[in-house]
């Protein structure tokens, strides 16, 4: 009976290890704080109506940013814990983590950073910016978009659920390579949490991919042909095409692994006819393109930023686009380079080695295109441009070490070494994360209505660069010295400890960079009035997202005018003609809770499948189907805003925005870090003084 009701769930599942209890307590406290604050400020209805059920891609984009930023801190703490363990654990000292716990941490770090940080930020940026760039008012399917977002959130909760129940995450590495992930070697629930957090967020990603393909191909402003699309839209389109190509493979593979674990089948086991190498093949067929899915939108961001801050058109637009297409095409045929050592034979290995090296060609076309864009441009070294320049350096380093790894004989030496870890961190941090930071600092004025503090932003950038070099250059060296990845302990005679300590210090400097980014946002909020963007176009931008107000009204554009050229906004600015706008009725989608309900049932079903509670799984799956069907009976999914209302709102908005930002007497208007510290100290002193007065 108990087994029927609760499956494998029992009292042992409650946290008992000290780290887990700390995690549980902090997560519960966080939840309680949120609940208390919301109840205190009476914001529940507001939150539900304005945000949680919203189908506005701009709001969904912001929610993606918030969740992803939270997960960046969560995954960053994992990284620091890994580095601390490795810095301590040499010779007779065994550090502060058990081997098993250490393995869980690096697994969680990998999953969180790729799935819930990088994917979250990239989807957030695509949500916010792509509709604006193609002058659309919403997405092709607003419902699929909120559903995709909430499935991502369900995945985020799932990946952290082990803190509350189970006390164990997968200890298998971020791709849960079989047969290690089978029940024989991983009997606990850790791998099940891994399967289901990836499965539900992965399905959300597929739905998002379909939606953005529809949006980009079908909803562009009249006159915007494919060859007039902005580069970020191109990057997103290629990335989304790859999403719908490879995420189904992940879904199927995870499903088979689930069958192995739940029903005792033998697809990937070592015995009874299973084939573990098939899992490696299938998972990397998805896993390798996945990193390109992340990096292509980032390439798009860099193209926008380099053109804007060099005040030039992007050099050789068409070859840049073709190069992006080439990257996404070749990326589908290189997966085997992750396991040259499997023994597929010299012919197979050399084919995949050559394919991998060929990817360097379109990538170099892109890099040279960006450099050519800067050539003879009037470059403005704003923070986004610095992130771009940092990217060029670090990504080139990562690309070159990648070409080294692509040579099969060299790979036999470097396989599973720290050299490989340093390589992919160079490309993913240098390419994807710097791209995200670049994009966020570039588009922040559009999103918030005021730009970010430049001085503290530059401090944060330098912390990141210095910290990155300090932690990953020693990692390359250690890799060549023979240190394998995922070591929780090494012999003192290796002499590796100083380098590991250096890596840890580098990690702390990166953490300072993250802290400074938080400070940067707070300082910008303090100076909000001074940094306000009244024009909607603070950087002298070239693409259409800068043609509307900052932040844009919920309908994005009051009128949809035809587009005639690439870099449409700079053309409009050049011609300088202002046509009296002709307002029309606008159709907007209504907010809906369907996405959140379906995702909640998906969460229930997957939680039940983790703990083998069959009846609850059936309830969850039935709930998904019922919600989906119930939604189809709702015909009232849109509403119309009459042209007169639009006109009123537009005129009111023009009246409300001041002609220009108030000019301060100070020449340099952004506060420095020191100014910020002084303000915080003064504020703290004031609080203390007031309290003292009260007690007096």
């Amino acid at each position: 009976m108990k087994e029927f009701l609760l499956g494998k769930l029992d009292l042992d599942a409650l946290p008992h290890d000290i780290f887990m209890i700390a995690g549980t307590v902090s997560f519960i406290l966080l939840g309680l704080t949120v609940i208390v604050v919301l109840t205190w400020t009476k914001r529940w209805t507001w939150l539900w109506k304005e945000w949680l059920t919203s189908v506005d891609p701009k709001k969904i984009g912001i929610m993606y940013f918030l969740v992803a930023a939270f997960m960046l801190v969560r995954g960053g703490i994992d990284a620091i814990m890994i580095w601390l363990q490795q810095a301590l654990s040499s010779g007779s000292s065994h550090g502060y983590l058990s081997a098993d716990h250490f393995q869980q941490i690096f697994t969680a770090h990998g999953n969180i950073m790729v799935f819930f940080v990088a994917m979250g930020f990239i989807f957030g940026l695509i949500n916010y910016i792509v509709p604006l760039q193609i002058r659309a008012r919403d997405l092709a399917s607003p419902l699929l978009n909120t559903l995709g977002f909430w499935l991502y959130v369900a995945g985020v909760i799932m990946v952290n659920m082990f803190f509350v129940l189970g006390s164990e995450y997968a200890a298998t590495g971020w791709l849960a390579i079989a047969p290690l992930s089978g029940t024989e070697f991983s009997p606990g629930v850790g791998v099940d949490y891994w399967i289901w957090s990836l499965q539900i967020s992965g399905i959300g990603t597929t739905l998002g991919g379909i939606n953005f393909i529809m949006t980009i191909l079908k909803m562009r402003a009249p006159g915007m042909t494919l060859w007039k699309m902005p580069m970020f839209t191109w990057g997103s389109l290629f990335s989304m095409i790859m999403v719908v190509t490879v995420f189904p493979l992940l879904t199927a593979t995870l499903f088979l692994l689930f069958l192995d674990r739940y029903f005792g089948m033998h697809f990937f086991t070592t015995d009874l006819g299973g084939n573990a190498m098939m899992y490696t093949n299938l998972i990397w067929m998805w896993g390798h393109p996945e990193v390109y899915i992340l990096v292509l939108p980032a390439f798009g961001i860099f193209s926008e930023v380099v053109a804007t801050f060099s005040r030039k058109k992007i050099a050789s637009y068409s070859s840049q686009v073709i190069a992006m297409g080439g990257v996404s095409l070749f990326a589908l045929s290189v997966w085997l380079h992750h396991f040259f050592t499997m023994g597929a034979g010299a012919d197979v290995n050399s084919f995949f080695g050559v394919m991998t090296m060929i990817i360097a060609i379109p990538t170099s076309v892109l890099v040279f295109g960006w450099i050519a864009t800067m050539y003879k441009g009037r470059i403005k070294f704003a923070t986004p441009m610095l992130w771009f320049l940092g990217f060029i350096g670090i990504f080139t380093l990562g690309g070159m070490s990648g070409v080294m790894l692509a040579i099969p004989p060299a790979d036999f030496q470097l396989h599973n070494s720290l050299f490989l870890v340093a390589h992919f961190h160079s490309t993913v941090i240098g390419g994807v994360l710097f791209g995200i930071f670049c994009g966020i600092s570039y588009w922040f004025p559009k999103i918030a209505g005021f730009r970010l503090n430049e001085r503290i932003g530059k401090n944060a950038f330098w912390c990141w660069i210095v910290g990155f070099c300090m932690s990953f250059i020693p990692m390359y060296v250690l890799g060549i010295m023979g240190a394998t990845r995922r070591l929780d302990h090494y012999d003192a005679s290796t002499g590796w400890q100083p380098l590991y300590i250096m890596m840890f210090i580098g990690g702390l400097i990166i953490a300072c960079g993250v802290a400074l980014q938080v400070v940067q946002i707070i300082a910008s909020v303090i100076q909000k009035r001074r940094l306000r963007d009244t024009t909607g176009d603070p950087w002298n931008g070239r693409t259409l997202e800068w043609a509307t107000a900052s932040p844009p009204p919920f309908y994005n554009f009051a009128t949809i005018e035809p587009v005639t050229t690439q870099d449409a906004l700079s053309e409009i600015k050049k011609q300088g003609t202002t046509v009296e706008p002709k307002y029309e009725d606008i159709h907007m989608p209504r907010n809906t809770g369907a996405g959140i309900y379906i995702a909640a049932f998906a969460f229930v079903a997957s939680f039940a499948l983790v703990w083998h509670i069959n009846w609850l799984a059936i309830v969850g799956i039935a709930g998904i189907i019922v919600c989906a069907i119930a939604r189809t009976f709702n015909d009232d999914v849109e509403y119309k805003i009459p042209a007169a209302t639009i006109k009123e709102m537009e005129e009111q908005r023009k009246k409300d925005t001041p002609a220009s930002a108030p000019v301060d007497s100070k020449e340099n208007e952004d506060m420095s870090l020191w100014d910020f510290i002084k303000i915080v100290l003064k504020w703290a002193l004031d609080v203390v003084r007031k309290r003292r007065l009260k007690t007096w």
Partner: protein
Amino acid sequence: MVNEHIAESHEEAAMDRVGFGFWVYLMTDLLMFAVLFAVFAVLRDATHGGPSGQELFKLPFVLTETLILLTSSFTAGIGMLAAHRGIKSQVLTWFGLTSVLVWPSWGWNCMSLLNLSTKAIPGRAMLRFPRSLRLLVPTDCTLLRDCCGWVLP
């Protein structure tokens, strides 16, 4: 008059997008099944000494079943067309026919799945696999597809 025209073209454009998105969705489905078939191709002889597929599957039966299912997809399609035209009696007829065709084949599938799991030695990947695949295909085609067809707009 002008407004009506705009409203109509707005809805038409939305339908056009949904139709396109639906094809993209079918592509993703196709790729998922490509993986399953690839796995089948790799593991079809990995029976670990147990009975092989040839001994277990009766191809004429599978053929009949598949034909019935394909017919049911066809009748469901005609039913949808009738629904678009708004002819109630036709919709009921075609959907009724569809369910008459679909439910028995689901039943057969479930029965043969049970049959297989008792006949085959437990834990043989390949043996359990093709049948569950046969179960998945009709479920997917008729149910999931229609669900998504409803959800997409």
